[in-house]
């Protein structure tokens, strides 16, 4: 879809954890948005003409609003602006942008991907959540769908209930959170997300969707290529 300018109203602004800020933006004009899961918006920040890129977390099925999850740790002009937003404030953005998307069945790559494996670090979960919601709820994708999400601390975890609920509702979906600074009692995967990913058995003929920091993407990409995964089945979006 072509990029358009939007105005939207802040309908929810919540600091979910010390690290992540959730925004729900109800569209004012245009009232509807058409985007592909995995795409992002270019938020206008008053006082600067530079646009800040934030991936959309919500499903494309919800076309009257968008949800964002923003990593507040960079402490730049974008995060300062978001931190000061109040309910009812009006924001402006251009959207949709980005080419990080699921290879859909009917395309040569899409048809070759017999399962989908998502590997995210930090706020890299944002476009991945949109993709997973879209595949499971809207497209009724019955392929095996696995999510590995790497964070530092248990207190960084958000949306845990939502992903666990998805795993209950859709037996083809598996969720593996992994913490690099886990407490002793943390029962699940620990270490880097790549450690978690390497522990679990490889899924044959899967498509891999990576989103997060550059180091993780480089490491996973190298690992997958060594395992013989075709480069055209490795899709990624680097977050900076």
């Amino acid at each position, binding site marked *: 879809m*072509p*990029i*358009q*300018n*939007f*105005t939207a109203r802040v309908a929810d602004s919540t600091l979910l954890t010390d690290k992540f800020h959730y925004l729900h933006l109800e569209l004012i*004009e*245009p009232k509807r948005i058409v985007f592909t899961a995995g795409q992002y918006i*270019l938020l206008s920040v008053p006082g600067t*003409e*530079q*646009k800040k*890129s934030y991936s959309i977390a919500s499903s494309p099925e919800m076309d009257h609003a968008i949800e964002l999850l923003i990593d507040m740790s960079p402490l730049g002009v974008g995060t300062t602006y978001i931190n000061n937003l109040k309910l009812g404030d009006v924001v402006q953005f*251009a959207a949709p*942008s*980005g*080419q990080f998307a699921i290879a859909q069945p009917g395309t040569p790559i899409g048809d070759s991907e017999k399962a989908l494996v998502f590997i995210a670090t930090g706020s890299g979960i944002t476009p991945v959540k949109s993709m997973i919601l879209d595949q499971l709820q809207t497209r009724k994708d019955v392929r095996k769908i696995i999510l590995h999400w790497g964070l530092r601390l248990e207190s960084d975890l958000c949306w845990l209930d939502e992903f666990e609920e998805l795993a209950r509702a859709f037996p083809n979906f598996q969720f593996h959170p992994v913490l690099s600074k886990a407490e002793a009692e943390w029962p699940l995967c620990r270490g880097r997300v790549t450690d978690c990913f390497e522990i679990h058995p490889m899924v044959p003929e899967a498509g891999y969707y990576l989103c997060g920091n550059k180091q993780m993407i480089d490491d996973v990409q190298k690992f997958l290529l060594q395992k013989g995964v075709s480069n055209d089945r490795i899709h990624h979006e*680097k977050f*900076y």
Partner: protein
Amino acid sequence: MAVTQGSNLASDNAAEPNTTATGKYKVTVLRDKCIGAASCVAIAPKVFALDSEQKAVIIGQDELDDVKLLAAQSCPTAAIVVTDIETGEQVWPK
């Protein structure tokens, strides 16, 4: 931006100034500043591409001025310079 609310940034609109595909803006990439985020490629794929070193390169100038400017403004390191070729003025970064 000279774009109206809800307008389509990627469409031709001959009635508007600066919206022909051969507009007055020229973009260049500061290679040392480019980190390969590729937001420019996503917004203006007719103008930008990533090379083998994952750096943005110019592959054409045939795009709407507003789209070129948006691509430049989306760059997290301000590695894209937009120049008005009629006046010589640097439009972005300011």
